[in-house]
């Protein structure tokens, strides 16, 4: 059927004099106004149908809640609309390039989502009898095998819940190893580069270590002279936490020598694996002399970031640290006739073993939902595809660096790895990194990571990942090139960006000065006034 256009205008009228800014509803076309769920009148309602109770005698013994929970209950259509409307205020990888350096926002394959929702993985309980969950145990074992071979390490702790939790796991294993050596009270100093992610020093401190900062050299790598000077006394050295490729997007050229120096000093080498995606399938961290490294499954292996988690941070360990991995440990139980994959939760479960685990890091055995997704991703790529992943990620970043180095200031000379780092040197007086970042929003892109790493002034860290096409990279570079030129000219319009996002710049100072962290009902007299 053709559309009937009789009597209907088929082209926009010339209506320059009509202003379309303000609306009665507060909506803007597809962008619907959406209040908080608490600003409804459904306080006594519920949007679920539940069976009636039968009046069986209670066994609560009268220990009950005094004031009922006061929360609104929306019907399904209202609830779905609420969240879909809110979703339209979010930028996402599925909408466009999300070049947040060090965060690795790559495409999230939908096969992973489908597999994680198989009832055989999503609808099983961590404390079921092992006999009834052998498929899940096999899956974890397969993933472990991949991670160990890709890193050439000795063992892997699967339970860490996120990258920082993996750091914690690795640093606690180091602490436990020092306890076993009887040196935990003397070896407290952990070397951490100034360029490190904030979680590194925070983790070291949380494990009871003292952070000693080391500087970067002119090439953006560890300043080896500074490192050597920090190692003049060695009997208090617990280890080093070093990101490789580092937070400047560069491979630590002297990494083998660093490993040797730390080991000679009696310490251990923790490698932050946040940037493993730049080398996966091409370089095995175990060949670099490290003792522990977490792998962010949500970065390298594409499990979704979900607006800030859940993450997953399996931590690979060298032979020296393997005996200190946290509970639970996967073991084969042959005591009931057949070989069962089971978890040992306590020393009692491992008679005759000399393991000395650091303890337990979380209630159960880790982020199964992320394990399934990561394995689906890994198998889809294979050893050949993962190598290509790293190479394309690095190629894309170098392409961006090459295209923009004439208008922006690369922080360091030479090729980069998976992310391109620029300083704000090229900007005119008064224009800052944040203005460039916010201007990218108007161009339809998520900003790059800004003001990190701290060692570069006004840092802009751009990580495209391997899942961007050349056409998309070109569009992005065209946009950023244009903004960079305006920044160099000092275009004051940049200061007000973004102009076309769902919101203008938000006042973070006000939010922190008098924090409002939850909705509270307006005072009755105030309601009457409105």
């Amino acid at each position: 059927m053709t559309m009937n256009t009789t009597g209907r205008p088929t082209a926009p009228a010339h209506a320059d004099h009509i202003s379309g800014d303000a609306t009665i509803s507060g909506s803007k076309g597809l962008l619907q106004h959406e209040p908080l769920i608490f600003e409804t009148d459904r306080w006594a309602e519920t949007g679920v149908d539940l069976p009636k109770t039968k009046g069986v005698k209670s066994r609560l013994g009268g220990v009950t809640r005094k004031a009922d929970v006061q929360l609104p209950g929306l019907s399904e259509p209202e609830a779905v609309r609420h969240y879909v409307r809110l979703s339209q205020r979010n930028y996402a990888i599925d909408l466009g390039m999300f070049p947040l350096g060090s965060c690795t926002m790559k495409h999230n394959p939908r096969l992973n989502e489908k597999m994680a929702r198989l009832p055989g993985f999503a609808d099983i309980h961590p404390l079921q009898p092992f006999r009834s969950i052998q498929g899940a145990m096999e899956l974890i074992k397969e993933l472990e095998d991949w991670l160990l071979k890709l890193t050439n390490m000795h063992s892997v702790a699967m339970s860490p819940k996120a990258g920082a939790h993996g750091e914690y796991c690795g640093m606690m294993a180091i602490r436990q190893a020092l306890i076993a050596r009887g040196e935990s009270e003397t070896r407290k100093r952990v070397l951490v580069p100034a360029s490190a992610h904030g979680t590194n020093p925070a983790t070291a401190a949380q494990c009871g270590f003292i952070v000693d900062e080391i500087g970067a050299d002119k090439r953006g790598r560890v300043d080896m002279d500074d490192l050597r000077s920090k190692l003049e006394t060695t009997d208090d050295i617990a280890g080093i936490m070093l990101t490789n490729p580092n937070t400047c997007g560069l491979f630590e050229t002297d990494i083998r020598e660093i490993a040797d120096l730390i080991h000679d000093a009696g310490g251990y080498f923790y490698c932050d694996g946040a940037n493993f995606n730049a080398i996966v399938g091409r370089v095995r961290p175990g060949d670099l002399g490290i003792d522990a490294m977490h792998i962010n499954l949500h970065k390298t292996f594409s499990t979704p970031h979900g607006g800030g988690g859940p993450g997953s941070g399996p931590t690979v360990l060298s032979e020296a640290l393997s005996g200190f991995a946290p509970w639970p440990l996967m073991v084969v139980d042959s005591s009931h006739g057949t070989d069962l994959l089971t978890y040992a939760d306590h020393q009692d479960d491992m008679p005759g073993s000399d393991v000395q685990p650091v303890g337990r890091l979380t209630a159960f055995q880790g982020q199964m939902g992320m394990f399934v997704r990561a394995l689906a991703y890994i198998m889809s790529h294979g050893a050949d595809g993962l190598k290509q992943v790293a190479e394309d990620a690095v190629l894309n970043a170098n392409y961006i660096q090459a295209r923009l180095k004439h208008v922006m200031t690369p922080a360091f000379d030479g090729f980069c790895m998976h992310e391109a780092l620029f300083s704000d040197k090229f900007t005119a007086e008064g224009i800052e990194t944040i203005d460039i970042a916010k201007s990218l929003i108007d161009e339809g892109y998520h900003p790059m990571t800004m003001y990190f790493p701290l060692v570069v002034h006004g840092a802009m860290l751009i990580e495209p990942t391997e899942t961007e096409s050349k056409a998309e990279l070109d569009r992005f570079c065209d946009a950023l090139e244009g903004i960079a030129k305006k920044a160099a000219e000092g275009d004051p319009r940049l200061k007000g960006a973004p102009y076309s996002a769902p919101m203008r710049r938000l006042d973070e100072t006000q939010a922190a000065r008098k924090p409002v962290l939850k909705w509270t009902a307006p005072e009755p007299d105030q309601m009457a006034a409105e």
Partner: protein
Amino acid sequence: MRYLPLTEEDRKDMLSVIGAKSVDDFYQDVPEVARLDGQVPDLPDHMTEFQVERHLTKLAAKNTTASDSAFFVGCGAYKHHVPASVDHIIQRSEFLTTYTPYQPEIAQGTLQTLFEFQTQVAELTAMDVANASMYDGSTGCGEAALMACRATRRKKVILSGGLHPHYAEVTRTVCDAQGIEVVQLPVGVDDELALADAVDDDTACVIGQSPNIFGTVTDLSAVAEAAHEKKALFVSVFTEAVALGLVPPPGEMGADIAVGEGQSIGNSLNFGGPYVGLFACTQKLMRQMPGRLCGETVDADGKRGFVLTLSTREQHIRRDKATSNICTNSGLCTLAFTSHMTLLGGTGLKQLAEINHEKACQLADGLESIKGVEILTPRFFNEFAFRVPISAYDALQELLDRDVVGGVRVSRLFPEEPDLSNVIIATATECTSDEDIALYVDSLKDIIG
């Protein structure tokens, strides 16, 4: 390769723009000894989508799911119904494939849901403020202990004998690393109030749980009072969020910090994770909280909006002086929680809690009718401990042969308590049918003989 958009021609063109001969040029900094000749050895090449799907589906099929059996396992993770719309909402691209909301102008979707989540958690726990979630309940419990030590400048933590043993172990691990003394009270089904007697002038906090690991519901107000008398804090733990629809919430009992597992609302069992830790406290302690916080503000046009706030507590600003090393929360699981809670409302939550309680009472009534079975938990919500006249391990194995996943044997949780080796903790929820209960009771009767 279906996820990689670059063509061979693109790669050549890009290399020439860059001025590199091949990608090997980018890896020149890799030490000679670590350079691989080709790809990583002993690993297979890529697979098609349907090959991967077939392989994983086969593994999944080997597992007995909670839905295709009579299922009674709880102890920190619970089989509840998740509305279809919740799973749909969390799969929206804009929620699923976005990052921590660092750029609030284009992340109001995530931020507003976090603000609503924090409000819901504060109301559920009856506390002043809640954060944007922790990894799970157990890690939240450890963080609560550290927070109490920071706030009181004391270094001693006392755990009840009914605290989930995994929560206790996580707390011991994190405290140990900071030289904090952890006192564990003897394991007991109904001994939560013993915390009140244990608190002394050095105590930073006492950590009690209701319902506890054995399912026992306790009004812990006396514990809070005893703690406050010694200027210590009371940390109130729960592992079953649905219970708070019916049992006294932490805030009503005088808790300073409330911490619990939120998996029950909106999230699947997932074999242990991902879950969502709920964390709330009094206004007074707000600036000591770990984790992300979302707060209200205005934009340049004066419009209400939301941002991450109080970040001066956090690792990216404070580095080694931060309140916690936490960077990620449990974003998508908070969305599942908050969207399910938005459907339930206070009214639905209470109904849900009542049904859970009734199912558990029905189960207890049935089991109690079996000769030799003794219910040990005096007051419970939806799970309870009971003694069988044979080993709990054998009983559960035989039940499994009859498609009954009958609960958790206490010996798995407390191997050092031989007296409890014939005790099972069983859980019923709204998903438990009358037929499931009948099958359990009949099967156990038959097994015990």
